[in-house]
């Protein structure tokens, strides 16, 4: 049996909130190298919720995240931010943490200050928020250390703090803990959850079902560039309807090659 488009719209109808979405996509398509990586994706991200994006390798999770954040331009379709088309202003209210932290060749503190400066925050406010970020990431003691000499766990904490001190409305995370040990993973999750508690909307790509269960409010399952199924995480996990989701949950689906 194949996924059906109505499945997708049905999932949309189950949206967990009546309020308008903070971010939505409309029939989003993205092609690269002659291949359709994202195929007619329509979805909504709701404010103050933690949405997990899941799916097999190659399903298009990272591409979708980049399209939503505006790092990639859709071939067709649109990304809407508060109902308006995505713009530079919109991106200013968003932040992103990458799978492998991108650290400037500067100290930990300078990395934070650079991000603040990019948002126009300078002077005393910048210094103060940078210290808050260091404290948040538990890196105050090594604020002077070159960021690229920190451990990978420390670097990712710094990356999350760097994203959060700019006080985004929405934080994208692309498998932020995939290469970290359990203790470091725990610290990242704590940071993200604390941000969520303060009202930041979270959209996170993860492979880790345990992590999704710990953190997710909603989930979007991607399969072959399309939304296979979406809704409340607990509902989807307990009663997966799409065959690809079932297969993935049973550990039978690692790539989008078959099915």
């Amino acid at each position: 049996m194949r996924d059906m488009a109505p499945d997708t719209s049905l999932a949309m109808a189950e949206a967990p909130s009546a309020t308008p979405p903070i971010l939505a996509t409309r029939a989003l398509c993205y092609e690269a190298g002659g291949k359709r990586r994202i195929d007619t994706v329509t979805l909504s991200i709701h404010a103050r919720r933690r949405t997990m994006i899941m799916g097999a390798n190659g399903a298009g999770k990272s591409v979708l995240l980049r399209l939503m954040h505006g790092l990639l331009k859709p071939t067709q379709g649109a990304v809407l931010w508060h109902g308006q088309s995505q713009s530079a202003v919109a991106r200013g209210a968003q932040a992103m943490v990458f799978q492998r932290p991108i650290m400037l060749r500067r100290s930990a503190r300078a990395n934070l200050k650079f991000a603040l400066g990019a948002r126009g925050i300078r002077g005393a406010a910048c210094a103060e928020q940078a210290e808050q970020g260091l404290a948040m990431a538990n890196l105050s003691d090594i604020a002077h250390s070159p960021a690229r000499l920190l451990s990978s766990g420390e670097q990712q904490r710094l990356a999350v703090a760097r994203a959060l001190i700019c006080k985004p409305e929405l934080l994208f995370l692309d498998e932020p803990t995939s290469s970290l040990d359990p203790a470091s993973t725990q610290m990242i999750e704590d940071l993200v959850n604390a941000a969520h508690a303060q009202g930041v909307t979270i959209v996170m790509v993860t492979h880790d079902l345990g992590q999704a269960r710990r953190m997710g409010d909603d989930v979007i399952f991607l399969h072959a560039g399309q939304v296979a199924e979406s809704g409340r995480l607990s509902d989807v996990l307990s009663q997966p309807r799409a065959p690809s989701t079932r297969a993935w949950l049973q550990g039978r689906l690692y790539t989008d090659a078959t099915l």
Partner: protein
Amino acid sequence: MPSFLDILTEALGLILSWERALSEIVILSLRVTLTAVVISCVLGLPLGAMVGAFRFPGRGLLTVILNALMGLPPVVVGLMVYLTLSASGPMGALQLLYTPAAMIIAQTILVTPIVAALTKQVVEDLHGEYAEQFASFGLTARDRIAALLWDARYSLLTVALAGFGRAVAEVGAVLIVGGNINHVTRMMTTTIALETSKGNLELALALGLLLLGIAVIVNASVMALRASAVRATYA
């Protein structure tokens, strides 16, 4: 003809008996070359960073031109600058011909493409790493360039050194636009050429060794600075 060893011995003696005339020549050489390198960096670093970091129409052509200009023969540059600064040239009124300024202009033209082309390479690699994060930050083009240049600063020291190497060893262009005038535009390389043509091979070689020594000192100090700075703040 004296043997190479004889010449070498005498050359060392000449360096040791450091004369005022020699120091004047060395100081002028460094002044002209370092000024040209600094100006070339002011022009070439942002230009190279721009070409390295951004996609724009004509970028490929600009890259080809920069790379081609790296191989510009100094004599050709000297002639171009001579024709421009000559009393009957378009900028003759400035009266810069046969002055150190003319030599600085010629060397700047020689060195800027090197700085720009090498900077492009360095910045392109770095930008490949940073691009997504910068886009996420929503950086302006100007801020991107500044951040890339700053983060590549230690690699760019090597770029500046390459420019210095080309300028300090250059003789064809400065000879034409400077005129090798005693006490005014006589540099180390033009003196070496002059003394060689006078058959004073010992003095020419002495100056050559001195030039080599200065180049080694400049390179060594910059690389030492780079090594310690890299250890301390950069990885």
